[in-house]
């Protein structure tokens, strides 16, 4: 079969959204590598420009186009591939493939589906078919009834009874689903579920059962293995994407493990999966009773996790099996000697922890349950559970030093343990500290007591560590004698040195410290109990000879030697798996991005991978540090050594000690490594690129503003906050609105616009809580200004290359949420000139060496600088792939002082790139879908066109926009917006649209002679939060697009606009919530450009 196929079409997954994130960059990239080995020509469709898979050197041709039927069909017509792969682009690719099949496109062009067949996919996607299939082989599924109407559902419920789960069929990882305990809740759920799908399922509730997953690989000769099993720490009822997960399972005995494994294999064989699939089980905690919850006939988030957890390259193998290869003929990539037809034996434990960003959203429901809300995840490796879990907590980068460290208060501890939220783990920690029994906590949470025993062990060890104080002599402690411990802790950083008193004491101290490290305590955490800072703990620890060892992940628990360097640190061991480094050749360490979260996503992984690749090409030994299982950078074949471990000062210093590299790169992984710059530098680490002191001058708002003043560069008026009263006075002087923000932020954390005195007072409270070490700055908020960004690379202060992007939205929308056109389309030449000059001056002043990004405000030709980051920015891949110059490659060259004397033209392009944000509001129940200074998008796409409108429309389609056929609903908040939009109403009407609007908008339009259809919305009365009626009104009027421009966003309560926006999102109707974007939509609909099917090469013929 494989001989006939020469050209394969691969579908990517598009913009990152909740439930479908970076893992598909990893799986797609591996698939391409596997296919290229077989000398196949690969055509890739993926509008996610920030991915590694869309890089040069992987696929033969890349189309930055929406993964949607209309577009892919045209790509097929143009490229005529012989085969297609649907398993590597998540649900998006799968759904697109199903549509291509249903509409006969695949048949028409004789395209073969590689891997699992469409028939099998349908059997796994349609619950009804799925249950029937499993019944045939006597495999149990939850009692479940498919219904197609609310009425039918309410009758059928009698067969199952409450509590019940409601699920929408064909949805992304549980969208439109939930638990109902009574009819009222059921009805509410049904309304949402039916808005996603015509088919809704009612299922028996198995709350409290264990949730177990197996990743299964099968070839077409029926060879079938389970590569990894995983157990959810949180019992069933919490979506597996929302769950803490361990691999391998911890509480299952042999009988359970292998019984479920056998059922899994039986199911996969019966369904006929070819390649990779995943099966989820519910297991009764008190018997062998089980249910199969779900089968995914494709690579999933879990398979990415399983790949990284075991070292087994699932996507690569799946691609090979899709081509008809025999599993046992494929080599195990880690040992390069044994076969891939085996099941990895782990000699470590892996903990996955989800990363949530719920506090970024207004009004979102904080409870976690059967729907996915997390935006990323981390994976920690240890030789015991405590070590791995504590690592994982720190890896989240949410400010915690470990299980014993949190900064919030629990009002109702029992409730916080019973009802999971992102902070449940700390509620458990608190309960253990308060002396609650494992039994009590287990009863409330239904978490297996085994996990809780292990957590208790961590918690109890606090006291031991604290007792260590007895053996220490503090140089400066005496004067605090009279104070309370709490007081001492507040000044603990002032202690500079401490000593051990005697020989016996020293031995005891070694015992305690070692055990603490074995339980995963970080130096900072230990420092907290010893009242010294983490550097002092490190010093003491090293003196006492307590240092971690490096262990290898080898898939075979040391049975065979590994050829790869996939590594982690542990204190639970004595022997290093790798030899101490001899400095033979140049070596560089690149720090990765950490978890995907709002503001840090696949683009930084792209930067890391490109940095590594370029250094590798230049003959360097490359060392990667990252712990995000959804990334390409954590593929062990991308670098010479991969440390799957923490991005903390402590761990990076361990790596520095172990590897002795020439230097460390902190400027390509986003804010997480960037934040380490100063601390690492102080500890003697050589940072490649810009001097960390200058990084601090750009990061610290106060220092940066002073610098701008010195350079006579204009900036919004600002003031450092020393007291609230002074800040209020300052705000009064410059006039509201003002922007409040702390230093060292990414994605506008705690950044807010205050429109009046009360707002400002409120925000200052929040902001000062977040950053104690860096001052908070209040600045004048400019209304109605344009925002412009420059991505650039400099060498010793000389700017080598730059790209200027223009935001479509006016200032006030976070740059991560902005739609960006490159090159800028409506910029005055003088504006560009000034921006270039300012950029040069800043680069000179900070002696920038490496990547950087500056954000500007422009009003007429008045240019103000609002932010400067001395690191690669979110838009680096976009700037690189649009201009045709790999900015990261150039940055890598200057960082290793390999200077090329080249000229770069990034201004005169014959085409336009547009980057658009991908939101996940439909996932976040109750969240208010608005744009503001807080970033809320979870991903992005970018497309290229011959005109702004073409590129823009392609981007809009890629993020889920549908061209309305007939009916549009418009609700414009502020009066000036209403007036501003009048002419656009006429233009839309001229295009034949029927425009519905709210009373006020209709009224204002009518006064100006534009007649709109009044739609009197039925807003919820009283305090009941329910916008179902509005949704029904939209549906009954066939509203295909909603334009809602909100007023001030700072009202706490739910506004009418909120209900409109929420109804739009919950009804799956495209929402436009920004005036400039709305106008551009109208212009684009008017212009109606041909959306050309052109590959990246067709636009950018030479990528450097």
């Amino acid at each position, binding site marked *: 079969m494989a001989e006939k196929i020469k050209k394969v079409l691969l579908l990517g997954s598009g913009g990152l959204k909740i439930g479908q994130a970076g893992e598909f960059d990893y799986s797609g990239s591996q698939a391409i590598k596997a296919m290229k080995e077989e000398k196949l020509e690969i055509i890739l469709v993926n509008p996610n420009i920030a991915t590694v898979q869309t890089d040069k050197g992987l696929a033969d041709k890349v189309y930055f186009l929406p993964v949607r039927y209309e577009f892919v069909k045209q790509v097929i017509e143009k490229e005529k591939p012989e085969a297609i792969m649907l398993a590597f682009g998540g649900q998006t690719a799968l759904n697109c493939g199903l549509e291509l099949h249903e509409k006969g496109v695949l048949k028409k062009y004789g395209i073969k589906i590689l891997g699992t067949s469409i028939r099998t996919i349908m059997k796994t996607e349609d619950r009804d078919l799925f249950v029937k299939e499993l019944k045939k082989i006597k495999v149990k599924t939850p009692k479940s009834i498919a219904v197609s109407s609310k009425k039918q559902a309410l009758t059928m419920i009698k067969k199952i009874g409450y509590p019940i789960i409601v699920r929408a069929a064909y949805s992304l990882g549980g969208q439109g689903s939930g638990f109902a305990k009574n009819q009222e809740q059921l009805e509410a759920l049904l309304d949402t579920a039916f808005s996603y799908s015509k088919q809704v399922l009612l299922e028996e509730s198995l709350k409290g059962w264990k949730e177990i997953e197996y990743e299964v690989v099968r070839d077409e000769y029926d060879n079938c293995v389970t590569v990894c099993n995983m157990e959810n720490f949180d019992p069933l009822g919490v979506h597996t994407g929302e769950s803490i997960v361990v691999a391998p399972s911890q509480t299952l*005995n042999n009988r359970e493990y*292998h019984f479920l494994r056998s059922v899994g294999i039986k199911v996969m064989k019966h369904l006929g999966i070819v390649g990779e699939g995943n099966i989820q089980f519910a297991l009764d905690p008190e018997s062998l009773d089980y249910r199969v919850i779900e089968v995914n006939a494709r690579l999933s988030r879990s398979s990415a996790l399983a790949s990284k957890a075991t070292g087994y390259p699932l996507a690569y193998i799946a691609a090979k099996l899709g081509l008809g290869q025999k599993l046992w003929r494929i080599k195990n990539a880690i040992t390069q000697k044994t076969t891939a037809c*085996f099941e990895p*034996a782990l000699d470590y434990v892996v903990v996955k922890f989800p990363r949530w960003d719920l506090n970024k959203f207004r009004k979102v429901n904080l409870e976690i349950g059967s729907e996915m809300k997390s935006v990323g995840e981390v994976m920690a490796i240890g030789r*015991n559970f405590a070590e791995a879990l504590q690592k994982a907590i720190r890896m989240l980068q949410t400010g915690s030093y470990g299980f014993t460290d949190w900064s919030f208060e629990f009002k109702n501890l029992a409730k916080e343990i019973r009802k999971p939220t992102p902070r449940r783990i700390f509620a458990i920690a608190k309960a253990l500290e308060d002396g609650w029994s494992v039994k009590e906590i287990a009863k409330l949470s239904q978490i297996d007591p085994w996990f809780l025993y292990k957590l208790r062990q961590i918690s109890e060890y606090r006291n031991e560590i604290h007792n260590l104080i007895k053996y220490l002599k503090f140089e400066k402690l005496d004067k605090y004698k009279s104070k309370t411990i709490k007081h001492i802790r507040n000044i603990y950083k002032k202690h500079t040195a401490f000593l051990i008193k005697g020989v016996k004491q020293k031995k005891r101290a070694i015992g305690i410290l070692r055990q603490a490290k074995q339980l995963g305590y970080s130096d900072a955490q230990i420092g907290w109990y010893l009242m010294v800072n983490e550097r002092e703990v490190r010093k003491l620890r090293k003196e006492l000879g307590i240092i971690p060892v490096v262990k290898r992940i080898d898939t075979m*628990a040391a*049975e065979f030697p590994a050829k790869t360097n996939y590594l982690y640190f542990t204190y639970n061991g004595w022997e290093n798996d790798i030899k101490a480094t001899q400095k033979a050749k140049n070596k560089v360490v690149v720090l990765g991005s950490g978890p995907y979260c709002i503001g840090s996503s696949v683009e930084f992984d792209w930067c890391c991978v490109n940095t590594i690749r370029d250094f590798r090409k230049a003959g360097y030994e490359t060392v990667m540090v990252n712990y995000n299982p959804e990334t390409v950078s954590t593929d062990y074949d991308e670098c010479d050594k991969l440390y799957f471990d923490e991005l903390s000062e402590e761990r990076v210093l361990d790596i520095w000690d172990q590897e002795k590299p020439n230097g460390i790169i902190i400027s390509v992984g986003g804010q997480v490594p960037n934040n380490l710059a100063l601390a690492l530098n102080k500890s003697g680490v050589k940072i490649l690129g810009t001097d960390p002191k200058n990084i601090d001058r750009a990061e610290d708002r106060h220092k940066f503003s002073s610098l701008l003043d010195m350079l006579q560069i204009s900036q919004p008026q600002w003031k450092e906050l020393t007291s609230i009263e002074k800040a209020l006075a300052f705000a009064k002087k410059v006039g509201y609105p003002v922007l409040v923000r702390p230093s060292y932020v990414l994605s506008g954390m705690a950044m807010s616009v205050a429109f009046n005195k009360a707002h400002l007072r409120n925000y200052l409270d929040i902001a000062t809580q977040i950053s104690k070490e860096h001052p908070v700055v209040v600045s004048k908020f400019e209304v109605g200004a344009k925002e412009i960004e420059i991505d650039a690379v400099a060498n010793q202060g000389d700017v080598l290359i730059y790209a200027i992007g223009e935001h479509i939205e006016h200032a006030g929308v976070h740059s991560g949420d902005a739609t960006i056109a490159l090159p800028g389309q409506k910029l005055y030449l003088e504006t560009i000139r000034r921006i270039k000059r300012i950029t040069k001056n800043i680069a000179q002043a900070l002696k920038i060496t490496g990547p950087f990004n500056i954000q500007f405000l422009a009003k007429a030709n008045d240019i103000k600088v609002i932010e400067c980051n001395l690191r690669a920015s979110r838009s680096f891949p976009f700037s690189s792939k649009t201009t045709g110059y790999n900015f990261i490659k150039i940055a890598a060259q200057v960082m290793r002082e390999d200077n090329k004397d080249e000229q770069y033209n990034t201004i005169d392009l014959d085409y336009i790139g547009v980057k658009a944000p991908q939101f996940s509001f439909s996932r976040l129940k109750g969240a208010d879908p608005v744009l503001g200074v807080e970033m809320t998008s979870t991903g992005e796409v970018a497309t290229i066109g011959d005109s702004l409108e073409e590129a823009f429309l392609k981007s809009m389609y890629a993020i889920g926009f549908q061209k309305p056929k007939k009916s549009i609903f418009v609700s414009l908040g502020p009066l000036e917006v209403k007036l501003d939009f009048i002419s656009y109403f006429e233009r839309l009407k001229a295009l034949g649209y029927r425009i519905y609007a709210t009373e006020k908008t209709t009224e204002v339009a009518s006064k100006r002679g534009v007649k709109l259809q009044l739609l009197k919305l039925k807003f919820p009365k009283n305090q009941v939060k329910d916008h179902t009626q509005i949704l029904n009104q939209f549906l009954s009027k066939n509203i295909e697009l909603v334009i809602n421009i909100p007023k001030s966003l700072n009202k706490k309560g739910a506004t009418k606009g909120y209900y409109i926006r929420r109804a739009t999102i919950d009804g799956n109707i495209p929402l436009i919530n920004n005036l400039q974007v709305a106008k551009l939509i109208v212009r684009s609909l008017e212009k109606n450009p041909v959306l050309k099917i052109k590959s990246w090469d067709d636009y950018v013929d030479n990528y450097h």
Partner: protein
Amino acid sequence: MKAKLILEDKTVFEGESFGFEKAKTGEVVFNTGMVGYPESLTDPSYRGQILVLTYPLIGNYGIPATDKENGLAKYFESNRAQISGLVVADYSVNYNHWQATKSLGKFLQEQGIPAIFGVDTRALTKKLRSKGVMLGKIIFSADKKKSKLDFRDPNQENLVAQVCVKKPINYKPSKKISGNKYWKKPKRIVVVDCGVKNNILRSFLDFGLEVLRVPYDYDFTKEKCQGIFISNGPGDPMVNQQTIANIAKAFQGKKPIFGICLGNQLMALAAKAKTYKLKFGHRSQNQPCQEIGTSRCYLTSQNHGFVVAKNSLNRDWKPWFINVNDGTIEGIKHDNERFFAVQFHPEAFPGPQDTAWLIEKFVKML
């Protein structure tokens, strides 16, 4: 209490004791399986061996009850712990499982088995991998006579004699399933017990067979039966000359003969082939065995140190399964299709159940 594992090359691994506190010696071997410690500890094939578990978290689900069915412990592979010692990295004092009745530590104390945790089992495994299995001993800091204990090679002893039944035992089929789809009249097999695992017996009984379990050196050739099974067991196969002779005699007959693990080696020896000792053996649940002449490869559970030499099989016998990782023979078959054996454990427990069809294949032939 502190405890030490000392290897014959004088390497010392220190840890904490959690089992019976009496020094013991044995052959140190590692197993890479991630579940199934109650099954492994009681597997008679581990007789005389100090078992190192490479999976670090052990004891999580405790130890199940010692309930018996047909005189066989329901949740164990024999009626007692067989290993000489246990070495793990991270031991869970606190356990939780609906079937658990006691902790692993308590069980080992009751069974008189020493155990250590807190050992870098990966470092230990790497040593065994590169230097081959070694003799070792577990000693305790409180034990004054520690120097007295010499290394002893269990392979010099007749381990099989230690673990097998002393007299024949006849098992009636499990009542529920007696009579099945393959035959109308009840069938009977002889199981030559060289240290047979309970799950092998359970598997046969569950098929509705009557089983006569005889000691390893028992002359079974005269017994009334429809088939003969040669079991797994510990140690060097060459020690069991009487069994080999008996098997050679049985080869003269026409009854189906099936062997597992040691049974595979004994059948090979009875067929005049040779066996040798692997550097560190196969002890895991993930050994890929390819059925020669087919497209199939199976995941198998294994526990053996000796193996049939590749080119020593005479003409009537053919290699049947081959280990894809190291090319060793994992199964042999006579041209008459009635005599066959595998080196791995189709009965699983612990391990994958993918080759359970082999047991059925044998049963069907009776």
